[in-house]
């Protein structure tokens, strides 16, 4: 007994010692920026010593957890063990059609009843969360399925929003006619931008798309004659409801259902695409470009379809955004917006539909309801992107590939019924 526990104790002591060191290191590291708060107006300094204490106290357990997780990760990759509880639970739910149908029905009822149960304000928040679900699913096509890191996604969002705003402003075009036009213009932009840049390697592509996104925003900001510059465009019409006048709260409910329908449509499209000829080509491209080409897939064309389709979705949501806020300006289309959408995809799980939905709801709703937390929102986004990449690169929810069933005997194989096997 005793001889066995000695190495364990030694190990524990060394781990604690290391974590203490890490904690000291971080106290040193954060000292100037955390402790010495400069007040530029009065040219004075506040010494915030308590922060140093907090850092020290917080880093110590975090370091222990970090080291433990690292250890587990290394062991895990050695055994190649899958996270079994999640897999089993997922399989149970999928296998039992009754459970999954019941859950779905309950969810549908809740979602439809939402605007009637909750206040107009809550509905507004839900609308923007659902918009982010759509944006996330759209970007998921580009990043999650095709593996193209697009950091300028917000540019297409802006194209959609400005299409509707300008068409409405100059020609009085309504929401319903502007929606396809906005999406179409975003598609065209996607193709125009995609064509030259999609030959680039993955990381260069990321930077170029970032550059494009910023160019579009800067043009919108400075080309006053076209976009009315930083002051933006106000007084955009809300979606019309068969020519009937609606009150503000009725408008909100109406918009909620428009967005809900579009989200449902998006889910349908993405889930069908994922298990189609094109979708498989996207995933293959993500997995291995060289092998993908060697299997006869045109790399550029395949990338372009993903890129353009993603852009189309951003265009859709852009139109809705303009209709929802009735006012847009370039400040809504900064790189941070792209980063938020990207973190939704990364956090939820690249390639997984449910993951992206959960990611969007968590990332958008949490800061709304936890006001105290909202200040730290971007801090937490950034940190979680790092943590997810380090510890769980497949995201919270792992995308599951479709299963096919065959009779084991030769001859009459049949495609199975179990095609719900996609999370």
């Amino acid at each position, binding site marked *: 007994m005793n001889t066995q526990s000695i190495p364990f104790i030694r190990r524990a002591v060394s781990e604690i010692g290391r974590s203490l060191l890490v904690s000291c290191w971080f106290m040193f590291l954060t000292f100037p920026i955390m402790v010495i708060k400069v007040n530029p107006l009065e040219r004075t300094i506040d010494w915030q010593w308590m922060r140093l204490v907090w850092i020290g106290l917080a880093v110590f357990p975090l370091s222990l957890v970090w080291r433990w997780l690292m250890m587990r990760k290394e062991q895990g990759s050695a055994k190649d063990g899958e996270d079994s509880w999640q897999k089993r639970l997922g399989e149970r739910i999928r296998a039992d059609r009754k459970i999954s149908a019941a859950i779905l029905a309950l969810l549908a009822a809740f979602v439809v009843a939402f605007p009637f149960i909750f206040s107009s304000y809550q509905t507004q928040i839900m609308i923007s969360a659902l918009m982010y679900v759509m944006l996330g699913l759209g970007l998921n096509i580009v990043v999650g399925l095709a593996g193209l890191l697009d950091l300028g996604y917000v540019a297409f969002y802006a194209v959609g929003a400005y299409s509707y705003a300008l068409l409405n402003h100059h020609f009085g075009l309504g929401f319903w006619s502007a929606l396809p036009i906005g999406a179409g213009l975003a598609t065209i932009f996607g193709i125009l931008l995609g064509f030259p840049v999609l030959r680039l390697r993955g990381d260069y592509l990321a930077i170029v798309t970032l550059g494009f996104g910023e160019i579009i925003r800067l043009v919108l900001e400075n080309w006053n004659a076209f976009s009315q510059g930083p002051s933006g465009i106000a007084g955009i019409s809300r979606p019309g409801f068969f020519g009937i006048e609606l009150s503000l709260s009725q408008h909100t409910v109406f918009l909620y259902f428009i967005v809900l329908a579009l989200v449902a449509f998006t889910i*349908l*499209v993405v889930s*069908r*695409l994922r298990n*189609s*000829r*094109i*979708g*498989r*080509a996207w*995933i*293959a491209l993500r*997995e*291995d470009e*060289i*092998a*993908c*080409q*060697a*299997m*006869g*897939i*045109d*790399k550029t064309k395949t990338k372009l*379809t993903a890129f353009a*389709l993603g852009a189309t979705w951003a265009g859709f949501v852009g139109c809705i955004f303009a209709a929802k806020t009735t006012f847009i300006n370039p400040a809504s289309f900064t790189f941070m917006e792209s980063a938020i959408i990207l973190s939704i995809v990364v956090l939820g799980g690249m390639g997984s539909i449910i993951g992206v939905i959960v990611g969007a709801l968590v990332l958008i709703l949490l800061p709304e309801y936890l006001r105290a937390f909202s200040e730290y929102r971007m801090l937490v986004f950034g940190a979680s992107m790092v943590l997810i990449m380090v510890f769980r690169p497949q995201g919270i929810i792992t995308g599951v*590939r*479709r*299963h*096919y069933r*065959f009779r*084991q005997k*030769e001859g009459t*194989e049949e*495609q199975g019924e179990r095609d719900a096997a996609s999370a």
Partner: protein
Amino acid sequence: MLQVLDIKQLTMDFGGLRAIDDVDLEVRQGEIVALIGPNGAGKTTFFNCVTGVYEPTGGVMMARRPGKNASVKLNKLKPNVITEHGLARTFQNIRLFQNMTVLENVMVARHCRTRSGILGAIFRNAGTRREEQETVDFSYGLLEKVGLQQHVNDLARELPYGAQRRLEIARALATEPFLLLLDEPAAGMNPRETSELDALITRIRDDEGISILLIEHDMKLVMSISQRIYVMDYGRLIAQGTPREIAENPNVIKAYLGETFDA
């Protein structure tokens, strides 16, 4: 016999390094031809040139599908176009789509033989559904052929090594090639798997009339399976001929000195 692949004076430079130097090689219809040589001889580079992954510095590469009159010049074609013409390959360092299922890996390779597009995928019209079903059936058939039918729904990365190599072959076959280029298909296999592979390769040639060019270090396999052998060393062709001729060729034995050469 008609040639399916005809390479003349192929040369490939990487900066100052000449990886392939003036190589001529041909494969005739229904043949199994081996390309051998010590490590770093330039064999994989040869495959990469033929399949359009690299652009060769010089030489002419022609290919002809049996039954067609015109042959196609492969120089400067993109890899996917070459595959569409009917040359398919496997990779020495296995390049499967790791996070897709075994069946899907093969289905991906049907891409260039199928047509349905985005709208078809979204609306799932009758044509798309039929094509999808055909793809599934065809791919499953190929998996049966290489003996992977138990693994259809497993992820490719979960397969044992030998099975991954067979999946690479099935995936290449799904593109309906007339010439199959196999880069060290037996690497990492045990003797039993290797002899199964021997039978599989012969069966592919006999059943489908697909010609085969293979790179292999396992001399037993090479000697038993191939009609003709080309030997490369330092980018050059140092010998060619039947297995018997090669086994007796002093140049070859010299090139392989230090390596086990048990033919």
